[in-house]
């Protein structure tokens, strides 16, 4: 089974990268773009099973994300 993990800066946390990208987009003619947030995408394979979701959730809490400054979401994709 594959897990796709999306990690983003928590709402309210300043994201300087996102802000810089947001300010650059009008230069290319893309007006009105707001709330650009830059995060991480992590893919991993893990053994199938009922506890796979729980395991990925734990991985996110303990290592993949820093819950103090980051939110995470993930999806499990059967292979």
């Amino acid at each position: 089974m594959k897990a796709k993990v999306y990690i983003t800066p928590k709402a309210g946390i300043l994201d300087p990268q996102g802000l810089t990208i947001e300010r650059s987009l009008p230069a290319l003619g893309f007006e009105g773009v707001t709330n650009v947030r830059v995060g991480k995408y992590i893919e991993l394979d893990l053994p199938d099973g009922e506890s796979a979701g729980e395991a990925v959730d734990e991985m996110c809490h303990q290592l993949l994300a820093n819950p103090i400054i980051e939110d995470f979401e993930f999806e499990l994709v059967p292979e």
Partner: protein
Amino acid sequence: MFVSSQTEVTPVRFGVVVFPGSNCDADSYDAVRSFPDTEARYLWHKDTEISDLDCVILPGGFSYGDYLRCGAIARFSPIMKSVKRFADEGGLVIGICNGFQILLEAGMLPGAMHQNEGLKFVCKQVNLKVENNETSFTTGYDQGQLIKVPIAHHEGNYFIDEDGMAQLEANRQVVVRYCDEDGVTTAAANPNGSLGNIAGVCNRDGNVFGLMPHPERVCDEIVGGVDGRSVFESIINAVAK
């Protein structure tokens, strides 16, 4: 008959942790060895026996290449379990720059670090104000003293939630802040966007201290300053007590 007037002094024992990617370990080692009656040894990240020490230094650098997040991998090093136990038993632990980031990731200090507001690696001399001179790391300074210490980091933007900040302030855990030449904590004097201009914090018990600036780099006139010496002097005095 010859009578020695010298009394035996028990040396203060420092351990400097070396992770793959540490690069301020030698500076830290030299800084503490420049004081009389000190011993220091390097601790490889796979070591676990540190109970003979008085103080552990987690030095600056780029442990594990800063993979995932700064300090996120180092905290799983075998030695970090020992460092945590050492701190829980009251041992003194100081984390400088990357060492501070590791202490945050390990949950040994509150808060988290993210990218500098300006997105750049900032390497320069900054002014710091000593906000609490009653910790084991700062008794050598006056309360409110201004010192000049260099910083060199890309992820030094300290963050903590509102409740956490209230606790830090209430317990006087903010030890040093970035300030201007007059000691005012202005936005312009904040090199990285840290909340409250925070440059360094300690834990509630006061025996674990982390800071982004590098006191070990200003411990000798030959390198341009000695404002960092009192950090190590304070530790030595705290242990000797």
